[in-house]
């Protein structure tokens, strides 16, 4: 029996990315448990929820999660990420605003975020109704004009909210003196780049070598998962317990030897 190395590679990449995301989720929950200030706690919790959405996106873009309907764009991961992304960005911007000594509202996000959320939820509803009413919109063969217009709405809203959220977050991070917040946003940027590669790299490669691009694009998701993990680890500065215990032991030894001499 011949082994399909491309399939094996894809499966391995999905597994690695999934494991990294699952561990990141665990770490985010841990941060949420130990952080005390409400804004920081809620930021860690929304990060955990965002990671769940990312896991769903990974699984269902590889056909491993049952569709909500029979179409790609209405699948679980896409719906979850569309709703979770603005909430995740909002929790980070609230934290950045608190960390900024002048509590400035980056690009009016605070004033506009409720409206943003209403637009996001409406877009998901419009897309859902369009697809449910006329599934042929996906093939571009529907004769229902409003369904044709409604289907891509949530996709465009997601892009616009991502750009608006990303820019606001960058502005907010640059305003704060908190180095971990800056690192967090930098890591999110790399994760976004990974996702961009995941969604685009297969297109040119598959043109020349069918199947190869699909497999290689999974590396983009592994990259995104890795940088999401790094972002989670930047939620707050962390010391190493082993180092601490070693230094404490050394300290005690030094005290004992000093006393004995």
């Amino acid at each position: 029996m011949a082994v399909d190395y491309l399939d094996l590679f894809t499966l391995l990449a999905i597994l690695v990315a999934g494991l990294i995301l699952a561990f990141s989720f665990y770490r985010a929950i841990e941060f949420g448990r130990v952080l005390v200030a409400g804004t920081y706690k809620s930021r860690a919790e929304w990060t955990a929820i965002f990671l769940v959405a990312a896991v769903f996106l990974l699984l269902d873009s590889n056909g491993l999660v049952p569709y909500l309907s029979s179409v790609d764009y209405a699948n679980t991961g896409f719906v979850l990420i569309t709703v979770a992304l603005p909430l995740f960005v909002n929790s980070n911007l609230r934290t950045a605003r608190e960390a900024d000594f002048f509590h400035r509202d980056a690009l009016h996000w605070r004033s506009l975020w409720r409206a943003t959320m209403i637009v996001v939820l409406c877009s998901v509803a419009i897309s859902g109704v369009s697809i449910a009413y006329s599934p042929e919109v996906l093939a571009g063969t529907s004769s229902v004009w409003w369904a044709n217009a409604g289907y891509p709405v949530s996709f465009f809203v997601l892009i616009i909210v991502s750009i608006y959220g990303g820019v606001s977050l960058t502005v907010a991070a640059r305003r704060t003196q908190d180095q971990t917040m800056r690192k967090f946003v930098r890591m999110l940027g790399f994760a976004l780049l990974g996702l961009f590669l995941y969604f685009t790299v297969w297109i040119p490669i598959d043109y020349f070598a069918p199947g190869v691009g699909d497999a290689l694009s999974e590396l983009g998701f592994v990259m995104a998962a890795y940088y999401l993990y790094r972002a989670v680890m930047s939620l707050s500065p962390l010391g190493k317990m082993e180092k601490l215990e070693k230094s404490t032991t050394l300290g005690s030894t030094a005290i004992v030897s000093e006393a004995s001499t």
Partner: protein
Amino acid sequence: MVSTGVPSLDHILGDDGYPDRSSVLVVGPPGIGKEVLGYWFVRSGLIQGDYCLFTTHRPVSDILRDMKGVGISTERVPEWISSSGSTVRCDLKDATSISFNMKEAVHKNRDRRVRIATDILSPLLVLNPLESMYSYWSQLLSDFKQQDAVLFALAEDGMHPQNTLTTMEQLFDGVIEMKLYEDGLAITPLFRVKKMVGIPPLHGYFRFSVTSTGMEVVPHGR
């Protein structure tokens, strides 16, 4: 001695709390719970009838929301110098007026014991040169020491170069450090008393947890 408002921390500090006429600096990353120590310190003062002053760069509404969030009653509140929601405003760009307002409030209450909690140290350190801030705080602390006052200040870890914090730590009578540690798969919040005037050096670390009923501090050890 002045109670910290956290019985287990009072116990660690020799059953009494912070020394009289002292200044205590709590250093830790944002969100770890430094403020909660300050809230309990002020709350304890309000119960005992001390004059309490809270100087903050945050709006009063945010502080009250946080206090409620950790189970601290807001029936009695301190006097505020804050960015909004108080009669006396805290303008970070005008450090002189902040110190003037703080001193004035303390002088007006010279017949009572005074507790001051503040989170303006980090923003002022970011906005002003270290040298000027060193003399600014040095003067402020010595002024408060003339009266029966205890000052509790917070400093954000990860926002200043290490030498800046080390320099500022020298000015304070007590320094408490709070930090998160990666302990295998878990994350453990620990703190240590780096120094505290009037009590023997405390070696070792303490675990702390914040619940809706208060703050618990226990020695960390395996």
